[in-house]
């Protein structure tokens, strides 16, 4: 699965958003829709940074420019995502490839398996 995650990350920005009706399964077997994943990620980000509201968490928002997060603060996403979305994300890919909220959503979504 790791190989799939890595290759998915390399093409994230060019790829269109996944169809909203698709369902995927996390590593704990829980079924998610894309909307649920987006909402969960927004909730996690707002819990980490009280400057944010769910409406600030847009796909196009950049972590460094729009949200003002540095690379180390971004690392804090790994633990709650693993706990709530049951996906283990690579620290290296979080730091290097996840530049926007859309990148993060796509990374988590591509880590899940088709339900």
């Amino acid at each position, binding site marked *: 699965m790791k190989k799939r995650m890595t290759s998915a990350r390399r093409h994230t920005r060019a790829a269109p958003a996944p169809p909203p009706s698709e369902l995927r399964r996390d590593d704990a077997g829980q079924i998610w829709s894309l909307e649920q994943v987006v909402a969960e990620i927004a909730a996690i980000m707002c819990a*980490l940074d009280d*400057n944010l509201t769910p409406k600030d968490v847009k796909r196009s928002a950049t972590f460094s420019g729009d949200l*003002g997060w540095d690379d*180390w*603060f971004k690392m804090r996403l790994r633990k709650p995502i693993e706990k709530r979305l049951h996906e283990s994300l690579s*620290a290296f*890919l979080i730091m290097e490839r996840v530049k926007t909220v859309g990148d993060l959503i796509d990374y988590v979504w591509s880590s899940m398996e088709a339900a």
Partner: protein
Amino acid sequence: MRLGAALLLFLFWACAAHAQPLDVAIAHSYLSARSLGQPATLFLVGAHHEPTLSEIDASILLRGGMGTSGFWESGVRALAGSARAKSERVFGAVARGTWDLNPVGLTVAAEYEADGAFDVEKGVISAEATPEGGPRGLGRRWSAAVPLVWRPWIGAGVGNVFDASGSEDPETDSFFRAYTRLEATWSPSHWEMGAVGTLWVVESDAVTRSHARGTVAYEWAKGVSFDVTGEIGRQPPRFDYDESFKIGFGLHHPFAR
């Protein structure tokens, strides 16, 4: 020097050998996250009837993944140029691994550092940590209206002087140094104002050395900026006192831009 350079070359080779994937960055210095966010700079110093002098302050760093929670980095840095005397020049090379140990980040590094004349050469193995989050402004904006971000680091290292120490160098032969560093950035729009301050405590009689650097940068094209930099204090390897104020151009190629 020979031993340190060989060790670093080996670490660099070992790291690069299993690099998947691999990224490269060009920046001011690999010494801190703040420095990695700053551009490599070239300053030209001119005066009437005087030769034009230059100063370059740059580093190149490679980075790759290492397991799920870590990554490795390896690179070289130089603070050199004809505007600096040989003893004021600094060269370094590093191999280090960093792990996300939520709620802290931990970096373990092996570094070689030398002055321009290679009169002072040191090898240092160190570990440093930073909290990933915490109080307001730590790693994130102070508030939606105040784009201030700060980050503290604390570290310690053991090292050895491979070649003779400078006259003001508190580190002789084998040494232990502890340090703390505070980085802060204010970045409204294209402007960025940043500062890094470091305080070292060296084991011999608990001697302290400090260094501070502040930069105001305006990015006028992607990766190219106009920079005003001031610095004061003492920094490894020689810990000689230095203060300067410079205006120049910066080149910045961060990781995975």
